[in-house]
């Protein structure tokens, strides 16, 4: 008796599941059939949570309110890496979203996935004017003279420093160090030691973050990968195992060795916390956390910002933009593609980008946003951000500062971080560590390229 009823229950549950699935399935098809009346539904995957996620949701809601004929369904995907992994599965099962936020280093993979529509298609179709968009930002996402995706959230790294500590150490608080050599010298002066010589407060804290290494290469106008940083043709090997790469690691390791810089691991949250709580005088971090730093410091000391340092004598370098862009996925109806394009245009329009900048601290991707009154007020409150804009505009556009394109960029970044760890711990020379990382990544590049060709 009991056995039977259990069976019935299971069968019932299964039936219920089938019903739910068919109902939702029906919902989709009726949407397609009832075009004209029903709004066009598009799915948007976004990948940054917290206050950035809240701002994203606000913009989506605003768009939906303003466009009764389009319904954007925003789905949070956890983080950039998870989003890309879910995309891989959705490509295999042919259920991709319409629009997706993908991080900078996912660019090569997105192109190679052959599952995307370059936004250039719609720019050409509508003769859309991109002249007000930041040139350096467009340059990153332009491959083979085509703008593949629309820049959305953009940041660069900055040098953050504690002006009060600079004053106390007899340094000019309005003149942050500009070169590796100056940073090293200032860090020494800013380092405090107890009577036994033990460091109680290091002058500098820098997280082991592959992105910083990429920036320091670009500052020296050095490329990360061959074939014009992977932009003239698919990169077949990396080129970060260069004298410029070694210079970065040597500089960093020397500071850690003499105690003027501290190795706190890979998390920028940890170095930021140390800076905010006055346990170090300088740090490198993204422009995106400027607001967090200012809130955390809350007037306890004066925060200064400066350009990313570069070795003395290096020229024509600058910063690479980081962050993410909006991609349009292929395989959807024309109506959906058009709706996606409307959505992408909206998200990167001046008014929205001004709101976005104020809420998140990312750069406005269009210079027209700087005319917005709210934004002017915000930037007057945080003059530190001006340095970031200056740094971006001072950066010449060349293959180095456009940033490398590599299908296995996440792996490359991981290998670089591993190499930095070995060098900082004194377990390998800069040259050997970079060579080992290059060998591993080159194997991966070869495998990646062969799987793309197939």
């Amino acid at each position: 008796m009991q056995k039977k009823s259990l069976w019935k229950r299971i069968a019932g549950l299964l039936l219920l599941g089938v019903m739910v699935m068919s109902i939702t399935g029906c919902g989709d098809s009726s949407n397609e059939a009832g075009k004209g009346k029903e709004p066009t539904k598009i799915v948007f995957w976004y990948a940054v949570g917290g206050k950035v996620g809240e701002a994203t949701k606000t913009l989506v809601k605003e768009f939906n309110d303003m466009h009764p004929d389009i319904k954007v369904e925003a789905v949070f995907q956890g983080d950039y890496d998870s989003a890309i992994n879910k995309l891989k599965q959705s490509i295999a099962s042919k259920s991709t979203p319409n629009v997706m936020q993908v991080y900078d280093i996912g660019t090569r993979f997105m192109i190679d996935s052959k599952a995307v529509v370059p936004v250039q298609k719609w720019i050409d179709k509508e003769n859309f004017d991109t002249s007000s968009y930041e040139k350096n930002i467009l340059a990153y996402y332009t491959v083979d003279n085509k703008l593949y995706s629309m820049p959305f959230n953009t940041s660069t790294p900055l040098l953050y420093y504690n002006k009060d500590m600079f004053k106390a150490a007899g340094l000019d608080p309005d003149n942050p160090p500009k070169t590796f050599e100056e940073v090293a010298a200032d860090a020494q002066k800013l380092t405090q030691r107890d009577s036994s010589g033990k460091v109680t407060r290091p002058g500098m804290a820098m997280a082991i973050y592959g992105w910083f290494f990429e920036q320091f290469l670009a500052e020296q106008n050095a490329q990360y990968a061959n074939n014009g940083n992977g932009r003239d043709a698919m990169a077949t090997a990396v080129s970060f195992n260069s004298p410029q790469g070694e210079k970065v690691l040597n500089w960093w390791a020397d500071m850690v060795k003499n105690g003027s810089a501290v190795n706190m691991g890979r998390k920028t949250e940890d170095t930021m916390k140390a800076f905010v709580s006055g346990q170090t005088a300088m740090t490198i971090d993204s422009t995106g956390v400027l607001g967090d730093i200012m809130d955390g410091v809350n007037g306890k000391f004066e925060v200064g910002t400066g350009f990313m340092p570069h070795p003395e004598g290096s020229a024509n370098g600058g910063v690479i933009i980081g962050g993410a862009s909006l991609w349009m996925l292929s395989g959807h109806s024309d109506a959906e593609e058009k709706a996606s394009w409307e959505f992408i245009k909206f998200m990167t329009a001046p008014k929205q980008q001004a709101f976005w900048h104020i809420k998140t601290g990312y750069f406005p991707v269009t210079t027209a946003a700087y005319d917005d009154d709210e934004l002017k007020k915000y930037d007057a409150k945080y003059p530190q951000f001006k340095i970031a804009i200056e740094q971006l505009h001072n950066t010449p556009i060349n293959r180095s500062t456009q940033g490398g394109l590599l299908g296995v960029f996440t792996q490359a970044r991981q290998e670089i971080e591993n190499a930095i760890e070995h060098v900082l711990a004194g377990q390998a020379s800069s040259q050997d560590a970079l060579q080992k990382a290059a060998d591993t990544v080159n194997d991966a590049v070869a495998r990646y390229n062969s799987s793309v060709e197939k």
Partner: protein
Amino acid sequence: MYLIPSLSLFIVFIFYPLLKSIKLSIFNSDLVGRETTFAGFSYYSEMLNSSQFLHSLLVTLLFTFYTVVPGILIALFLACMVNSELKGIAIFRTIFAFPLSIAVAGASMIFMMLFNPSSGVFNYFLQLIHLPAVFWLSDAHWALLSVAIISIWRSVGFNTIVLLSGLQAIPEQIYESARIDGAVSWRQFIDITLPLLSPTLFFVCIVSVINALQTFGEINILTQGGPMEATNVIVYSIYREAFFNTNFGYASAESVVLFLLILICTLFEFCFLEKKVFYR
């Protein structure tokens, strides 16, 4: 008939993925993980010749040792402590079982704050007793131990509950007759408690080893396999290879090896440890 529900679940969630992994491990695959051309055993030979894989294997075994042994010893101690008829002992039992109810992610986030080098509680206490600060997660010597601490903390609750139920199943009369024969308490523990608890201990041991070999959440959240690969256990390596490095074949080969490793460990325990188990 009874077996069909569980069997179908097993087939869908265990056997099919297992066979699929084996298949993936002998094929090359494209960017989204679909098989393309036959690769034979090339991924296996690449793996066995890779120093990184051997390192991962070593880290995995070390991690298992670090977590299983203290995890069971602490749980045994706690279980004996709460196996008494004191007033309010239920409160302690609840407290010890508490970590069980916290998800890996939650526990990891809590420990991330405790481990924080500049604002964490652990370093604050070290400072109070004039010891140098420890970079719990960013020092290659400490990272694996730090992650192991979380795993131990998480597993002790479960182990304690299971061991406690084992202890309570031991009839009081046996202890009574032992006391009449003049056995002191540690004698009782060695000669009565341990043998009668051995089936439970055996179970806890097997489950702990399997859990330790499959630990992923803490490592993914706290160290991402670093620093200097010090916490790059096999499960984490599989995750990185498959989902970041688009190296599905290699990752599948690793997962097959991990499966075999768990199988061998479990068989080993059944063959050798079970002989010492005393079933009544």
